């Protein structure tokens, strides 16, 4: 094939991986990476890089499963493991996604507070607009606008270069595993992993591969899409950590609210830093706030056999639209709780995501290794090995975190 037509084919199937990657650096993502940089300097870069590598592997597995089977993950879990396991997986997904939706609305609230609008006005309004747009219009076209807004996060890349970080130290830290048994550090590490690789991201990438009609035959182009997307997730995360470490960590400025994260953009934008940050945060949060309730409802209805799809009417698919509406209302309502630290909501939800990820990963890998489902596209033993290892590490970290929280002396003693 000529390179030109190859390119055309790539462009026609690209999208799922890249959209997922950008929605991945959502409100929770920015908050977590920034907190990691501000609190621990460059120490968590290693964790971030490892999780990005695994993000690429996990996204590749999901996208490949979608292309090889033409079906969503919820669908496959139900068919392969029956109704109880499907219920379990959906419960996990619901909790994780509800949490993440809350964090997206926190991001929206924060962005509007930067612009001087109270959350009691912005959150209900945006929630209603999102709900209305998805039900009444073609949201794919709107998606492009928010993707463009997400590009503002490249300002962290520029900022990260402008602050002249000690590159040698950054590089050394990037390849040095750092570890501490303190609950705070564990929390942060799980948060970083949990915001990079998310349960919803795995469901979503597979669903959009299926939705785009990508088949096993033209899968190899989707692989590139996924790899490029994962690279950008990591690329931006890296510079957020570097930028916050070089500005906040060095000057011992703790992050109290998400607005403090904007300080890391000062070298680039000066007094406009918070505005720039606000736009980026808004774009990413809204993009993800569109995607999350929708993909959750899709997955749940797919697993239980309820009518679903945005082209249906609410009378035809009551469960689908009901669930979608409830998730948006709950997500938005939680943020309106008076006196809530929006920034902590964003952090905590990412930790929950990280803790809930292993069950989803286990289903994913089990399904992707089955020859009866995947045929020649089944996981290779090497792939399986890496995936199991990572899942085990994540479970280990979660257990450690629980232990460290319950018996603080025990775990820090282990690593002292």
């Amino acid at each position, binding site marked *: *094939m000529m390179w030109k*037509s190859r390119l*055309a*084919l790539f462009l*026609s199937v690209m999208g799922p991986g890249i959209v997922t990657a950008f929605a991945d650096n959502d409100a929770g993502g920015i908050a977590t990476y920034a907190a990691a940089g501000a609190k621990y300097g460059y120490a968590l870069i290693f964790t971030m890089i490892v999780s990005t590598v695994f993000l690429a592997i996990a996204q590749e597995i999901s996208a490949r499963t979608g292309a090889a*089977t*033409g*079906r969503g993950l919820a*669908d496959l879990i*139900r*068919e392969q493991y*029956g*109704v*109880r396991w*499907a*219920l379990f997986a959906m419960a996990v997904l619901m909790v994780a996604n509800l949490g993440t939706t809350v964090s997206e609305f926190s991001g929206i609230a924060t962005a509007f507070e930067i612009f001087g609008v109270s959350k009691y006005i912005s959150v209900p309004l945006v929630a209603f607009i999102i709900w209305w747009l998805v039900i*009444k*219009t*073609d949201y794919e*076209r709107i998606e492009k606008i928010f993707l463009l807004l997400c590009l503002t996060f490249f300002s962290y890349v520029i900022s990260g270069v402008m602050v002249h970080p000690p590159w040698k130290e950054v590089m050394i830290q990037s390849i040095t595993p750092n570890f501490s048994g303190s609950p705070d550090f564990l929390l942060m590490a799980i948060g970083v992993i949990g915001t990079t690789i998310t349960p919803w991201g795995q469901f979503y990438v597979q669903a959009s591969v*299926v939705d785009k*009609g990508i*088949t096993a035959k033209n899968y190899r182009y989707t692989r590139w899409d996924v790899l490029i997307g994962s690279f950008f997730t990591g690329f931006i995360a890296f510079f957020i950590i570097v930028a916050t470490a070089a500005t906040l960590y060095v000057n011992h400025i703790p992050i109290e609210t998400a607005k403090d994260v904007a300080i890391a953009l000062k070298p680039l934008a000066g007094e406009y830093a918070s505005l720039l940050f606000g736009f980026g945060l808004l774009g990413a949060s809204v993009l993800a706030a569109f995607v999350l309730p929708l993909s959750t409802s899709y997955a749940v209805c797919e697993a*239980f*056999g309820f*009518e679903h*799809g*945005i*082209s249906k*009417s609410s009378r035809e698919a009551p469960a689908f639209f009901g669930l979608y509406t409830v998730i948006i209302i709950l997500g938005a309502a939680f943020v309106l709780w008076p006196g809530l630290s929006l920034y902590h909501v964003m952090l905590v939800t990412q930790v929950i995501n990280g803790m809930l990820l292993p069950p989803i990963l286990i289903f994913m890998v089990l399904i992707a290794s089955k020859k009866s489902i995947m045929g020649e596209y089944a996981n290779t033993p090497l792939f399986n090995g890496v995936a199991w290892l990572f899942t085990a590490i994540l479970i280990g970290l979660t257990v450690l975190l629980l232990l460290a929280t319950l018996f603080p002396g025990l775990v820090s003693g282990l690593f002292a």
Partner: protein
Amino acid sequence: MSEVKILGEFYFSQILSKPILDAQGRRVGRVKDMAMRWDSLAPHVTGIKFAKGVLDMIPIEMVSSMNQREIRLSVAFSPDITVQLQDDETFIGKWLLDKQIIDLEGSKLVRVNDLTLSWITRNHKRLMVLVAVDIGVRGLFRRLGIEFLVRRMKNNFLGWQYIKPLESRTSALQITREKEQLRELHPADIADLLETMGYKERTDLIHTLDSQQAIDALAEMELEAQVEVINQLDENTASDLLEEMPPDEAADILGELSVEKSEELLKLMESEGAEDVRELMKYEEDTAGALMTTEYIGFPLYLTAEEAINKLRELAPEAETIYYLFVVDEEETLEGVLSLRELIIAQPSTQLKDLMHKKVVKIHPLESTEKVADIINKYGLLAVPVVDEVQKMLGIITVDDVLELLIPERGKSDLDSWLVVRKRETKRGQAE
């Protein structure tokens, strides 16, 4: 006539993983699945799989009693009593439970939550038969062990006669029956089904349909979905479908594919059909040429009305429209036109050249689609002929083609979703 007596109905989920005890009260295993044969009248159970990873089964005849707690055998268990799964049998749980199937009654995809089975006696022989699949919420709750929460809810059963599993594993007899039932579905419903399926199931279903039905269903889809389906099918099936589609639609689809793919498919198509399509693909989008179809009814000048009617009987089933009959010479130059009404009321021996209107409204293939719509609207036509500079007839554009252009079908972005619902209701109405 065979005497059928119903002894009792129960759910598959009620006996699944229940212990099996033999005549001496020894535990043999648990109910893992059941093998079913789908031959004569109703699908019936032949054996019980009692352990994981073992292909041997306990024949159903050895079951003496069955209740919510356990299954009892009438004999002492030994490996000698077990049987193997036969070629015409399939494990019902693995095949149906939790799977998506086509509900032929409601013509949509549904998920099987549970199965209803029944003991019956026919000719003094006791049989366990499949009665229905449970596709309702109550079945879902039952599987989860919390049916008591929805005790007031009605069950939603679908008789086994109305199911079409996505994976065909049954006898040829059964597949023939399924095919017949599929034939009853309206193409618009099949199109909806195809659009909600994974691409593998989609391909399977298209292979099950007869080609005319597949084409009709495809014609009901939007261009985007058509392109997706053609892209996913294997080249041979895809080219067969394209070949039998109206050339204008085939050209639209091929125009959206990559150059390599459309070349490949065109090469596989029969030369005559492919040539028509190639001809149409030459025209740019938004021109009359891109809109037209090459399938029209053209009669020679000296044909009599009677001969024309006879000829029309042959051509009518395939033609896009039969209301306008075009009269052409040997060079396919457009000479005139007459309506079906005029043909029918004419004296049988009159030649077409004396019946036809010589002044014909026509359009050049490079004219814009707006112009086409204008002309059709102004003269109140059902179709307009497309001719080149030397009046050679190239094809026709029907009023449907123009309507499709003016009123996009089932648009995603439509704000008036009631319109979509109403349109679908009329479709359903036609099917009845």
